[in-house]
């Protein structure tokens, strides 16, 4: 068994990260309490749903036009929570989808959230809408929904591309309270400019741990933070060594 060329450094990093990952998952499984700092974007979800309930307007939720990746998987946790809260508060939720491959999963998540909330009859299948996988068609479909159905909250969590700016600004124009979040860093400035709350960088990926307070997932979040320290250590060590003429770290990462 041989390593693929150019992957030695990555393999070592992955092994180290996996060990840290299991260490923290194991700790939380054994009952150690680990704390996650407050994240305003997630705290604002209840405020947004409550506002919609007061105004009698629906909540709008969308993933963006990317593809089924970690952003979508993290967003599913938020969708499950938001759908459940909407069910409990008798507030409509409209989900617009550009990803054909997750349409069935989206329907299942929302339906099961309504079932868990004890209101299976309140689930409206027509509110989980595949609009288009084409970015511009997706954007115009949502702009139409904003104008016709005037959601009181616009939640945009997932792999966003250029549609982030348009949807956030259109949501701002109808006075919706907005939460934007994506691991695609280039879209973060647009969300910051137009949304009330923004999840920056890896904040979206802690959704399951933060909202669900699932201990094993909290452990995984700790591993992520330690991964950052590990990366920082590699960068600092690599910089110091390279400056003094030793390319061990840089060569290891290239190997």
């Amino acid at each position, binding site marked *: 068994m041989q390593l693929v060329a150019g992957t030695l450094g990555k393999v070592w990093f992955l092994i180290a990260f996996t060990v840290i990952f299991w260490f923290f998952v194991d700790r939380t499984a054994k009952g150690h309490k680990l704390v996650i700092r407050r994240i305003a974007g997630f705290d604002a979800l209840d405020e947004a749903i409550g506002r919609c309930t007061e105004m009698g307007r629906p909540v709008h939720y969308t993933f963006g036009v990317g593809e089924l990746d970690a952003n979508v998987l993290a967003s599913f946790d938020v969708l499950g*929570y938001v759908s459940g809260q909407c069910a409990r508060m008798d507030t409509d939720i409209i989900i617009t989808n550009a990803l054909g491959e997750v349409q069935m999963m989206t329907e299942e998540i929302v339906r099961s*959230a309504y079932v868990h909330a004890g209101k299976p009859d309140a689930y409206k299948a*027509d509110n989980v809408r595949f609009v288009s996988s084409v970015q511009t068609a997706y954007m115009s479909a949502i702009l139409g929904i904003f104008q016709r159905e005037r959601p009181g909250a616009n939640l945009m969590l997932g792999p966003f591309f250029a549609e982030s*700016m348009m949807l956030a600004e259109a949501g701002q124009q109808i006075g919706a309270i907005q939460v934007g979040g994506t691991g*695609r860093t280039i879209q973060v400035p647009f969300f910051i400019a137009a949304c009330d709350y923004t999840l920056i*960088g890896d904040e979206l990926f802690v959704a399951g741990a933060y909202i*669900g307070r699932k201990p094993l997932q909290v452990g995984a979040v700790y591993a992520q933070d330690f991964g950052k320290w590990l990366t920082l250590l590699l960068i600092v060590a690599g910089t110091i060594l390279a400056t003094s003429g030793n390319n061990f770290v840089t060569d290891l990462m290239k190997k």
Partner: protein
Amino acid sequence: MKILRSSVPIWLGVFGGSIVLLAMFIKIPVHVGLWSKWFLEWRVILASFALTLGAGNLLRIHANRIRMKREAWMYSYVTIVALIGYTVLGILFKRTHPVYSFIFDNAYSPLSATVFSINAFYISSACYRAFRARNGHAAVLLLSGVIVMLGSVGIGYAIWPGFNTMTQWIMNYPNSAAMRGMNIGAALGIIGVSLRVIFGLERGHLGGE
């Protein structure tokens, strides 16, 4: 039934994720490598077929809108005719057929470009609202934003060539440093989510809260 809904998807994720991950790093025996290749190919095929699921949902929703005469129901006819008509046209005549090309070039392309161009207007109003120097950090953001805007276009160069040099510096150093930091954080988040799927800890996609 419960096994099909919960355990099977988790084990598929564990199995598929591990095989593809291993194949990225290790030259594994041929038959295991083939599994990885098949998973990747299935993903490509499924992505194509998934569109059909989406189209089915779209048709159902718009048919319901027409049947129940909901607000703006007449536009649903346009959606259904466009969806079915253009699909049939593509299947029967292929992409290079003049009718297909005519619709693409004279209806689809201009409509798409128009919707996309709305971004220019929305960015301008968002910039106007967001770029307010309310504190020191916002002032730095405002200043660097204006410099990069001027340094990226000819008028900035005509006003003062130094804008261009400053833009290059901002993009190469502060911007690259900040983006690298955010990218590393996001990448670790992605690895974390992926490991949760591979180890069967991630269940958000299976439904429920």
